[in-house]
């Protein structure tokens, strides 16, 4: 990959936008993970079709999908890094930057909105110490975001903490709920 002159006038280009360039990248698709991906490939007539599952494996292993991981995933599946990035950026569930240890998604779409989801969001922002949506708490434990319809509208307000799906959350329940995610 070649870079043009940088906008800042020739400043050194970091290989990682997060400044971790000193640490060498450790590939995800080795050993068991590679075997798991290979086993998936038989399900589809093209390698490209395994891209979404492969990105899920990356996120499971690393907690997010870094530019280096996008390039590696592309290499494994015969796709360019740019193509993989195009796909990653389309879907909301792939993290393009590191998030807190516990990633909290609160549904606020209309059915939950009419049932008071805004107050649930406030309770999470307050009790986690995040203060603002999308900001990771100072202790690195929590990131809270609003999410569009989680598909459990009859059980307002549904909340996802990492891969746990929790129904009928009210502001009062938030402090106890967070005790499970220290």
């Amino acid at each position, binding site marked *: 990959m070649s870079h043009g002159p940088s906008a800042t006038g020739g400043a050194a280009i970091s290989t990682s936008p997060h400044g971790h360039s000193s640490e060498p990248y450790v590939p995800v698709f080795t050993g068991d993970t590679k075997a798991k991906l290979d086993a998936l490939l038989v*399900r589809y*007539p*093209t390698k*490209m*079709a*395994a*891209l*979404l*599952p492969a*990105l*899920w494996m990356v996120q499971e292993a690393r907690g997010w999908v870094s530019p280096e991981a996008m390039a590696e995933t592309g290499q494994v*599946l015969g*796709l360019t890094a740019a193509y993989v990035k*195009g*796909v990653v950026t*389309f*879907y*909301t*569930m*792939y993290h393009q930057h590191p998030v807190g240890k516990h990633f909290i*998604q609160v549904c*606020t*779409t*209309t*059915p939950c*909105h*009419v*049932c008071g989801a805004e107050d649930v969001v406030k309770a999470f922002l307050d009790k986690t110490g995040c203060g603002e949506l999308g900001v990771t708490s100072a202790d690195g434990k929590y990131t809270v975001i609003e*999410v*569009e*319809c*989680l*598909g*459990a*509208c*009859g*059980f*307002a307000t549904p909340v*996802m903490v990492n*891969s*746990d*799906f929790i129904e009928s959350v009210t502001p009062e329940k938030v402090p106890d709920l967070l005790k499970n995610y220290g």
Partner: protein
Amino acid sequence: MGFPFKPHPRETTVLSKHFGEAEARSLDGWKARGGYQALEQALGMDPVAIQAVVKDSGLRGRGGAGFPTGLKWSFMKLGDGKPHYLCCNADESEPGTFKDREIMRWTPHALIEGCAIAAHAIGAETAYIYIRGEFTEPLDVMERAVDEARKAGVIGKNAMGSGKRVDVWVHKGAGAYICGEETAMMNSLEGKRGNPRIKPPFPAAAGLFGMPTTINNVETLAAVPPILVNGGEWYKKMSRPDNPKSTGTKLWSVCGNVQRPGNYEVVMGFPFKEFLYDLCGGPPKGRKFKAVIPGGSSVPIINMEEADAALMDYEGMVAAGTMLGSAGCIVMDDAQSIPRQVARLARFYAHESCAQCTQCREGTAWTTKILERMVAGDGTAEDFDTLMDLCEQMTGKTICVLSDSCAAPVVSGIQKFRGEFEALITRKTVHTVPAIVA
């Protein structure tokens, strides 16, 4: 009614009969409940004969469009030498809808059986169940059920010893409402951005991986096994005899300001008023119902006069000025501000637009901005015309119907509750909640 509640006596449980029974999730438990009889029967039948039974039943697509299922299957050209595919749409993301989630959580084998029968009926050897990424529990339950069925030889290269190959695979989405649109789903399954495709070509001609493909909703496929076992006539006879166009039972998800939210299964044509007050328990104590969006957020909003007279089937909802859609019923009481809720809906569509088409990308964003400005008390009289103009540009002019879906609640909300919007502009007041009536 869905777990954890017992069904109401006025419900007709076909799909939801085993909701809440943990044993029904296992292969043995499902077989003990009569499961996989239909598949065994189907694998011994000619695909055209299966299509005929489903056509005869009058079953229509439960994902929102209501297209006759048997007719859709018959578009697949059998024996053309190409690989055919079945996609099961389990991307359930239409606000207000959470019925497919219950089907997958409680009766995963009903869906696998439906997929396998449909695959055979369209000449496909492979079926993919595309489940939205947020559905962690349904994903887990479905994965395990598919594994169990494959290991037992129910599906696989020699399904139930029939010599026919039927593979079923679960595919996990990654967060995108638009992937519930069938052509976007196919792109997503292929490992691409979930942009909808221009039709034609229709999926039956060139769909997944460029091959003939049928896409069916979870509930549609889960209804196929009981139809095959009991016959099309049995299914047709359950619903009101004066409307042969809507047959069988329908799962309704109910949410919002209602005493008993949840999933209910009633026959097509059930009276909506009785449904809302008797089955769902009416409005919260001291409140009155104000408006309903009966078919998921993409259908027009109706007032209670219209809702009280409506019948719950495809034609009944059209007669009431709205649509059955995905039957995700969002109920609002008199404490809700319609402009505020319509603005929130518009925000949803603006967030979920794939941004391919200008009318949708710009239209949903501007609709949201204007509505939110009105709600904040900064609206002007011209905003009505601007919104109506935007909504016209967003209707019928794009690759898919996402922007049409944004326009529907905006236009109907303004038409039916114009006074509330005008009050925001003339009095610059925000919504006031009426006192609870004892």
